[in-house]
């Protein structure tokens, strides 16, 4: 079931999201994510399956579920109010016009993992991840790079490093000490464009940062939505709570993608550092 006012994006209306209608499906130029931190790439970057550093490849840990199994689990998770989106009780990230979707989507997934673990809600700063990676440039990039940085270093709290402040002055000793409180400890590599792997993760409540070339954007997947005979992907965007529908807790940023629009570069995020992350004195 959709949330009140929740919109489904598919082949018929995806231009609402990308604005200019130039997409592979529309016969236009591919809207690839940007590579090289500023240089548009001529082809989509696709990390070879199994090549994400430290990641467990999907097939080594999981068995892909059939559509019918996914449908049954999705219905059951909705009935018991135990989907990822049911567990999210904090506002959506807001990249506020920056090109840091590739950090916001991954950081949002980490915040969701903390919420599922019952850890205190702490807003985490995407700029504290993307800034050091790019040399503090406001440019597009890849979720895999954000994942690597967070698994090795962590994320600083927004309280110490504002979400969209792409400035090196925030890298203080106090902030460096805070990074380690918010690391990703376990993550899974999924095959690019493999929707059944994506949905298998989601019905096991594993948030999946999803880089979509047709949108030129990265968001994270939360749930599988059953709509008639179709299976859809519920995502959470990073365009503030104003965008999309609100969940039962009244926090927004949710929308739904049809299967054809759910294919992208993806990985699952599971365990994160258990930290109380005490506020600065």
């Amino acid at each position, binding site marked *: 079931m959709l949330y009140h006012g929740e919109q489904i994006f598919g082949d018929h209306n995806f231009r609402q999201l990308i604005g200019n209608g130039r997409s592979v499906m529309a016969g236009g130029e591919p809207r690839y994510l940007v590579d090289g931190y500023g240089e548009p790439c001529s082809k989509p970057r696709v990390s070879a399956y199994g090549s994400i550093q430290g990641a*467990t490849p999907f097939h080594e*840990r*999981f068995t892909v579920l059939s559509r019918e199994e996914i449908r049954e689990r999705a219905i*059951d998770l909705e009935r*018991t*109010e*135990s989907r990822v989106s*049911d*567990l999210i009780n904090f506002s959506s990230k807001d990249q506020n016009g920056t090109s840091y979707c590739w950090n916001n989507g991954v950081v949002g997934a980490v915040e969701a993992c903390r919420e*599922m*673990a*019952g*850890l*205190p*809600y702490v807003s985490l700063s995407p700029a504290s991840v993307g800034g050091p990676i790019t040399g503090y440039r406001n440019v597009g990039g890849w979720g895999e790079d954000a994942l690597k940085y967070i698994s090795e270093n962590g994320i600083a709290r927004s309280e110490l490093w504002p979400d969209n402040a792409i400035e090196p002055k925030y890298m203080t000793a106090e902030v460096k000490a805070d990074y*380690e*409180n918010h690391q990703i*400890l*376990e993550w*899974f590599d999924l095959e690019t464009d493999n929707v059944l792997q994506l949905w298998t993760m989601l019905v*096991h*409540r594993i948030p999946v940062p999803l880089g979509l070339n047709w949108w030129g954007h990265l968001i994270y997947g939360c749930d599988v939505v059953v709509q008639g005979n179709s299976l859809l992907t519920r995502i959470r965007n990073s365009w503030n709570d104003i965008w999309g529908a609100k969940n*039962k807790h009244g926090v927004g940023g949710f929308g739904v993608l049809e299967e054809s629009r759910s294919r992208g570069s993806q990985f699952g995020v*599971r*365990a994160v*550092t*258990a*930290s*109380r*992350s005490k*506020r600065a004195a």
Partner: protein
Amino acid sequence: MKSLASIMLLVALASGCVMPNVNHSGNPFGGGGYRVMIVHESGDLDDLTPEQEVIVFSTAAGSVRHYCELHCAQNNNDPDFRILDPDSPLDRDDPCFTKAKLAAEKKGLKPPYMAVGNGRRGWLGPLPPDTQAALAILKPLGSE
């Protein structure tokens, strides 16, 4: 499974224990507040039965999470209730969770397990089979 849990509870009560596995020796997990920790192998999708998944993840009214949000000790307005992977280091969290984990290891418990402490008494054992059985353990300790 429900009836088995009920029988276990009745046997424990009849044998003089207030709860099965109650730790009477001091302040279970310390900290002077009601805290709940569930440990399960997050990367193993077969770790929990469907009924146990409801214990761990359901946010519905009357669920374990709902109960814990209302009754666990508050820290900066957040309830001290944790769902953790056994590999998660706890040195950055409240020490009571480390104490609970050490007590579980001393007892030889394997995930999934549940630890409940209210600063005086506690319960430590395998994750109950369903929400009803879990709440039967949580509520007496949470209401003290």
